[in-house]
């Protein structure tokens, strides 16, 4: 086959090789990114169905559709699947895998085979965790607090093993990304010219490699508690159940930032492009990611203010937690500052960025409530906490994932989706989200504890509003699935740079060729040089693009 015919067929990564096996055995970071996306979305569907069933059960104060034991399993799987299999890997493994080498002007990640192995490790972890669903299931909650998780019956070990295995995928992906950023930047791509998505991914990867091993050993010890009754976390044998909480939150608090930092990265890319303005406070946004990553490791005790931890520990953890709000605030102000004096366009990715700002601001501000010692005592373990972390993790991370998916959809698949459909879905999801979760703040302040299968009649109205909201979100996601699949099949052909963006990932055809760039790009400026006259200067050097 001559070069001419290859070019005529438009040799890109999607049709570079054909057949199922070429996908399953690929080491191309773009294909691996898409495989992750398909898997993450599948788990999202499963976790989402559980969420809908949980909300349906809470339609009435007593039993609606399931008994308490079933309900307890539902929220356990909803939490475990959404945290370990969806929100933690959501952006790094999908958008991160696809975009990181492209934004760096590289042909692949540093260790492509390891990357593929990480995918299968993740898949295996997910299968372990979900396999237990078909056995007796687990009812520990996703936090696996001891000694309940030691005593309860069910297939807890399978879920723990699943989370343990999925953790290694996270570690290996983080490792791969760190080395990729160190070693594979294109000529001229200095640290101060890195796109903010890359900075965010870098900070995320550092947390992944430092925190996840501690989760791994904690879960392994818990498995040993159940198998060998080692007693380290079991007061009946002389151990300390609160030690488990310390170990667990030493991972799981930083994990919150594994979830949200990549979302910050996506929003930092979307807002300047659709405001046609340089990002405001580039360095502040880049460094604040590291400030957050650093603080993330020394605030875990704020999950345990009422666990019997000492007053002194509570004092320190509350004080340090306050400082998380500072770099986070810097980011929010910088994004809004970027929009000031811009030329704002309302394409779907930007709408999702607006949605992100609204939900994340609410989530962030309510975080200050929970960081405040006395206030935390009343609000912790209530629906206030549930609403807070859904606003941050779903409102933040998932909105950013949707922004990113709509932003890079043309690049990934070379097709355009319907903007008007996207607007309808965005509206449904945003409104549905607020209707679902805002009442939960009030429920929590009123004192309704979380993980309640039944509740006092006085909480009925707000619970019912919340349940109706969940149906709006579901409708929004179903509609999104519909128009994106339609676009995949029969969407218009996308140009190589539909949004006139400046990062390297857009300076190559859509979909990109197998090696990402026809010629290795040479970078001469930062990626946010949007000039006042709106002229598009091909600043980030690359070969001339095909029309």
């Amino acid at each position, binding site marked *: 086959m001559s070069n001419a015919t290859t070019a005529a067929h438009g040799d890109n990564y999607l049709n570079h090789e054909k057949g199922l096996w070429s996908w399953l055995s690929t080491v191309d970071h773009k294909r691996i990114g898409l495989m992750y996306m398909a898997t993450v979305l599948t788990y999202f569907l499963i976790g989402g169905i559980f969420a809908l069933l949980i909300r349906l059960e809470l339609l009435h104060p007593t039993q609606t559709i399931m008994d308490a034991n079933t309900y307890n399993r539902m929220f356990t799987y909803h939490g475990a699947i959404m945290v370990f299999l969806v929100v933690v890997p959501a952006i790094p493994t999908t958008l991160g895998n696809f975009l990181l080498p492209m934004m760096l002007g590289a042909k692949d990640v540093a260790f492509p085979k390891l990357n593929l192995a990480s995918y299968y490790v993740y898949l295996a972890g997910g299968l372990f965790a979900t396999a237990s669903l078909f056995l007796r299931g687990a009812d520990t909650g996703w936090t696996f607090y001891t000694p309940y998780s030691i005593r309860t019956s069910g297939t807890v070990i399978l879920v723990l093993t699943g989370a343990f295995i999925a953790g290694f995928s996270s*570690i290996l992906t983080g490792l791969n990304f760190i080395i990729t950023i160190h070693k594979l930047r294109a000529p001229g791509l200095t640290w101060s010219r890195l796109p903010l998505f890359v900075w965010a991914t870098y900070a995320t990867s550092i947390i992944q490699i430092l925190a996840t091993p501690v989760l791994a*050993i904690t879960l392994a010890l818990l498995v040993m508690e159940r198998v060998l009754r*080692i*007693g380290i976390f079991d007061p009946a*044998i002389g151990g300390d159940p609160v030690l488990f909480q310390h*170990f667990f939150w030493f991972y799981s608090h930083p994990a919150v930032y594994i979830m949200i930092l990549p979302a910050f990265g996506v929003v930092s890319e979307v807002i300047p492009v659709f405001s046609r303005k340089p990002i405001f406070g580039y360095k502040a946004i880049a460094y604040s990611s590291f400030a957050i990553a650093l603080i993330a490791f020394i605030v875990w005790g704020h999950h345990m203010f009422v666990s019997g931890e000492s007053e002194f520990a509570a004092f320190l953890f509350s004080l340090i937690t306050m400082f998380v709000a500072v770099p986070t605030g810097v980011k929010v102000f910088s994004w809004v500052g970027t929009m000031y004096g811009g030329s704002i366009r309302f394409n779907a990715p930007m709408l999702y960025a607006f949605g992100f700002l609204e939900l994340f601001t609410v989530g962030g501000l309510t975080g200050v409530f929970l960081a405040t010692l006395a206030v935390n005592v009343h609000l912790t373990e209530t629906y206030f906490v549930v609403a807070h972390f859904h606003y941050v993790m779903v409102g933040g991370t998932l909105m950013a994932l949707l922004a990113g998916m709509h932003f890079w959809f043309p690049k990934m698949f070379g097709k355009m989706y319907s903007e008007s459909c996207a607007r309808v879905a965005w509206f449904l999801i945003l409104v549905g989200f607020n209707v679902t979760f805002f009442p939960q703040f009030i429920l929590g302040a009123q004192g309704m504890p979380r993980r309640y299968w039944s509740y006092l009649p006085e909480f009925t109205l707000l619970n019912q509003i919340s349940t109706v909201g969940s149906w709006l979100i579901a409708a929004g996601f179903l509609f999104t699935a519909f128009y994106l699949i339609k676009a995949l099949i029969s969407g218009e052909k996308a140009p190589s740079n539909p949004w006139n963006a400046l990062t390297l990932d857009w300076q190559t055809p859509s979909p990109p060729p197998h090696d990402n760039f026809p010629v290795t790009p040479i970078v001469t400026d930062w990626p946010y040089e949007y000039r006042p006259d709106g002229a598009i200067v091909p600043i980030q050097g690359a070969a001339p693009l095909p029309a």
Partner: protein
Amino acid sequence: MSSTHESAYPVHHVGHHFNNASDEFEAAKQGMWVFLVTEILMFGGLFVAYGIFRGMYPEMYVEAHHALQMKMGALNTIVLITSSLTMALAVSATQRGKKQRAIGMMAATIFLACCFLVVKYFEYSHKFHEGLLPGAFYSNTEITNPKAPLFFSLYFMMTGLHGIHVLIGIGLISWMILRSLRNEFSENFYTPVELVGFYWHFVDIVWIYLFPLLYLVS
């Protein structure tokens, strides 16, 4: 016969995404360092648990540690340090293209690793026999401190996780011997052997911390 023939070496292809072999080598080395950091954190969890319970029950640690066989632990320390030396010699021989010597040294490393496991086997079976078992299975009556089962839980978890790392090390070094026999390494390409060397030294260092913490409590 093929060991000295330059043309007999299969050429290692530098990954298409790297500029040159030295970039690729540096990336692999950095990757291994980062991986070892994650390993330290994983063992770190156990060390922290050890430290917390030692702070709570210092006298229990003193009493319980007498049940460990200090001489066997010391012997194993010497065995592992020697194996680190043979591994280092194997890496240096590979770098200089001395295939036979490298394979010999790696075989010696595996032999020492097996010695370590055999000694460990005798230690473990002694403890099983004495009822010095983790947590709820503890049945020893000589040590009167009621918290003593915790010490043996930690002992088995820490040495167990370390033992798994020794087993993985034996597997990796065997694989390196196999690849050496297939002439995959040369003065120009010895990354995998060097990385396995890093790993083996790490396993050794973990033991050097475990030994005094478990066997030499005072």
